[in-house]
């Protein structure tokens, strides 16, 4: 396999456009006759809607239309289930409720759309919202997931008779039995909340229905152009081929933009068809906090059983999950939690069960990390409990419980994953990642020589080291089309959404290696459904793995056509030809060559004949489908200091070690990890959506919802790599998009505990904040000796 560009630190093809302000985002999309939409959203989390009086809004000059549920007629219905329940798991209970585009009778969460205004500009539209009179009667709201399952709880969906959304139980071995055989059994409650995605660019949608051509063109910053096309085609009864979705440059997505059939999408398309005008909507930050999607709280009740030597025998994890008012994504997040709990450890027995619960809150979607974070959090925290109980170093407890380097991969876990296939650890060297992280952070030296001195100086400085896995690159499939053009430029298109991951470069590297051209001569097109029709979307850290291998496969098909065409042209066998520098040449005869563009012209002649039975041009379409996800894994380690007055955190050293198999572009890989770590830091110490007991959001602005700033980041992140190629795909790639985010919360907990070194300080809830840590430390100081937890 040619590997001239794969693995190189190549500057990004897309950056000149982005850095000089020439990249177009949703706000830049415009039509001369475009109208603007604004949405009236519910203030109440749960209410009965009696009436909506739009008469005053219609009188405002510049208002073109105001729509409520009645206007939709037969188009008013719940959206489809986006991800089905894992029905193959025995004993599953599944209640499904999906979003409706606009409230007709019952309001299920704050932020739900009650009315839509279409006006000549957004200012007029917003003014019109202010004079719409909504008559509604508030109902008791479901906020707390533990109370939601009690018999006297109010119900989010009255007709279900329960707030239970999904229940799944999976067991490897027999936990009840192993519990009686262990030297120790510890039990602990853990609570983890996760916030919104906080993308710099909010959602945006522009629908343009053209009556004459019967063509719907949608611009949207979606993660799933194909999913959006298919859903709008189905909703409005238009052939997919007459729906074109175009994704401009996107200012971050991180999960919520994978959702399709969202109310604003349906309503803007509806209005565009009705008015035969382009309709655009840009979500504002307040709407983003209440009207899009986020991740949410899990409450875990865990038990860990282990022997005196520190070997873990079994784990039980029973958890509740807040799925919000509707559950179109069903169980992806809690399934990811189940599959990532025991991770890279050798835990013979594992019982995991979850109940996801409807509440009167904005619905959930995966957010970077997507459920894996919770599993890693409870596992790493439980290993720290074992270390404390046995008075052992946390890294020793991890070392003796890791799956050994000589284990016979692939290893089946017996736990069904988010792709409904069994989670299989495909490859890896887990002891090596622990050792590398320990070496890079200087673990033993810090513990033995440095920390005692700093403690003697009165400093609160601690070290932490945690491990994780990330099941990446799941199916179903991705595809691509590659064409060598007359100019010699290579056009490589897929339907995949791109949001800053460097797709214009990494896929160009893969293609250039096969075609034998420069990386900058490969023009990568992403997210235009007219350029390539087939694919699923950007999620589950799957771009490099699934689409990367589709590009690799397709480029090989084009390479074969290049060789066959040149072989006929030069009348030499294919194995005497070589590709490189944008030309095909006869090996050993350097003056005998043809430029790739000229060969493309010869392969697609305008007169004469081509060889019967062959296809014109140098073009191919190809697909790649993985059997199941590829296992990335890694470790995060930090030395941090807690300021005893402000309780702010300062990192003295930060190390991240990752094994994502074959690396395409180390520079882009580092960037992915940096960004992921930033989100992990937010999830650990800053970001929390706070609701009152009536499910009212209390911090719906960036003034009160904190996102870490540059100064909250480690000044330097040292990144280490192991490279165990995945045996599942020809390039050996594993995903990395979410890795940085996953292990950070337990890292904070372990290092903060180590900094204070108080027997009574054990952290079981995240996100933390300076005031929370202050309280925990004060409580710990007042506990008696021997009260561990």
């Amino acid at each position, binding site marked *: 396999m040619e590997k001239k560009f794969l693995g190189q630190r190549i500057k990004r093809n897309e950056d000149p456009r982005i850095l000089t302000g020439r990249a177009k985002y949703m706000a830049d999309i415009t039509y001369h006759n475009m109208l603007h939409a604004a949405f009236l959203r519910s*203030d*109440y989390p749960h209410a009965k809607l009696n009436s909506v009086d739009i008469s005053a809004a219609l009188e405002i000059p510049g208002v073109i239309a105001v729509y409520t549920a009645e206007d939709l007629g037969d188009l008013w219905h719940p959206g489809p289930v986006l991800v089905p329940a894992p029905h193959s798991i025995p004993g599953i209970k599944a209640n499904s409720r999906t979003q409706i585009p606009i409230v007709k009778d019952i309001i299920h969460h704050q932020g739900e759309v009650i009315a839509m205004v279409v006006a000549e500009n957004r200012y007029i539209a917003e003014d019109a919202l202010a004079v719409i009179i909504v008559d509604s009667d508030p109902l008791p709201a479901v906020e707390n997931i533990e109370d939601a399952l009690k018999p006297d709880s109010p119900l989010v969906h009255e007709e279900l008779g329960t707030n239970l959304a999904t229940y799944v139980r999976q067991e490897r071995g027999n936990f009840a039995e192993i519990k009686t055989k262990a030297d120790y059994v510890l039990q602990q409650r853990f609570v983890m909340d996760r916030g919104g995605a906080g993308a710099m660019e909010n959602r945006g949608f522009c629908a343009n229905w053209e009556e004459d051509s019967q063509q719907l063109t949608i611009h949207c910053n979606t993660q799933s152009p194909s999913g959006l096309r298919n859903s709008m085609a189905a909703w409005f009864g238009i052939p997919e081929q007459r729906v074109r979705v175009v994704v401009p440059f996107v200012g971050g997505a991180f999960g919520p933009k994978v959702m399709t059939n969202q109310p604003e999408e349906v309503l803007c398309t509806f209005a565009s068809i009705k008015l035969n005008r382009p309709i655009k909507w840009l979500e504002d930050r307040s709407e983003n906090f*209440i009207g899009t999607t986020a991740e949410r709280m899990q409450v875990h009740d865990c038990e860990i059983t282990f022997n005196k030597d520190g070997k873990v025998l079994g784990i039980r994890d029973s958890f509740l999950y807040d799925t919000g008012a509707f559950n179109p994504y069903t169980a992806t997040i809690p399934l990811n939690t189940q599959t990532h709990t025991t991770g890279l450890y050798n835990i013979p027995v594992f019982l995991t069960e979850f109940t996801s619960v409807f509440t009167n809150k904005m619905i959930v979607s995966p957010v970077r990390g997507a459920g894996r974070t919770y599993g890693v959090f409870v596992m790493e925290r439980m290993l720290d409990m074992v270390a404390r109980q046995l008075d052992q170093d946390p890294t020793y407890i991890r070392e003796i419980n890791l799956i050994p380097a000589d284990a016979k991969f692939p290893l089946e876990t017996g736990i069904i994953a988010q792709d409904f296939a069994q989670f299989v650890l495909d490859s890896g060297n887990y002891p090596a990642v622990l050792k590398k992280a320990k070496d890079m952070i200087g673990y033993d030296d810090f513990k033995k020589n440095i920390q005692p001195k700093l403690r003697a100086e009165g400093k609160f400085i601690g070290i932490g080291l945690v491990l994780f896995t990330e099941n990446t690159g799941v199916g179903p499939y991705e595809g691509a089309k590659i064409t060598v053009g007359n100019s010699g430029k290579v056009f490589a298109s897929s339907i995949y959404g791109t949001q800053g991951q460097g797709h214009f470069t990494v896929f160009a590297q893969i293609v250039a290696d096969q075609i034998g051209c420069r990386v900058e001569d490969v023009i990568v097109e992403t997210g235009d459904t007219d350029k390539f029709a087939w694919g699923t979307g950007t999620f589950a850290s799957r771009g490099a793995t699934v689409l990367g291998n589709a590009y690799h496969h397709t480029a090989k098909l084009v390479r074969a056509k290049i060789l066959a065409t040149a072989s006929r042209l030069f009348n030499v066998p294919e194995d005497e030809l070589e590709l490189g520098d944008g030309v095909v040449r006869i090996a050993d005869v350097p003056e005998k060559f043809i430029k790739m563009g000229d060969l493309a012209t010869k392969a697609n002649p305008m007169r004469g004949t081509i060889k019967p039975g062959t296809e014109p041009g140098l073009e191919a379409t190809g697909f790649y489908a993985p059997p199941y996800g590829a296992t990335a894994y890694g470790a995060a380690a930090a030395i941090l200091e807690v300021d005893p007055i402000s309780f702010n955190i300062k990192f003295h050293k930060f190390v991240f070690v990752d094994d994502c198999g074959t690396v395409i572009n180390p520079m882009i890989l580092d960037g992915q990890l940096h960004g992921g770590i930033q989100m992990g830091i937010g999830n650990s110490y800053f970001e929390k959506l706070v609701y009152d007991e009536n499910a*009212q*959001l*209390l911090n719906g*602005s960036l*003034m009160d919802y904190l996102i870490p700033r540059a100064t909250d980041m480690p000044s330097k992140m040292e990144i280490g790599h192991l490279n165990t190629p995945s045996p599942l795909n020809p390039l050996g790639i594993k995903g990395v998009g979410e890795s940085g985010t996953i292990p950070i919360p337990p890292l904070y907990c372990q290092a903060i505990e180590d900094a204070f070194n108080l027997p009574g300080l054990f952290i079981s809830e995240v996100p933390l904040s300076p005031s929370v840590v202050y309280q925990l430390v004060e409580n710990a100081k007042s506990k008696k000796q021997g009260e561990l937890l």
Partner: protein
Amino acid sequence: MKIEGVFTFNGPRPVVWSVLRDVNILATAIPGETTLKPISDNEYEGTIKLKIGPVSGLFAGKLTVADEVPPESCTLIIEGKGGAGFAKGTGHIQLIELPDNKTQLKYIGDLGIGGKLASVGQRMIDSVAKSMIKGGFEKLEKEVANRL
């Protein structure tokens, strides 16, 4: 949100009570620009213009006086709804006679807010509510002084 506090009037309890229950006076104690008008002895309706931090707007409002025990206690219920959200407050008021012809007003209540008021104005609501209540009592205090 729980709200409680005390305010001491320089006047005897019957005078304080008469001011509190004067339909033409009570509405003036609502801070902000208000058009609250009495529609009966114990009900007012109209609009209140409020500004809480970055959130401001016109609220359709209703004020009700309930559970009267003259001249000792009553309950005030205030409701407002508008483009920036909604608020509903219930305050139980108790008048206690003090020496030197003074009267202590004790209040304890619940304030529920929603919409933008809650999601954006939350961090300001506590201090704004306290200052609004204080401002209201100061207006009533002036009327008490006028009647002495």
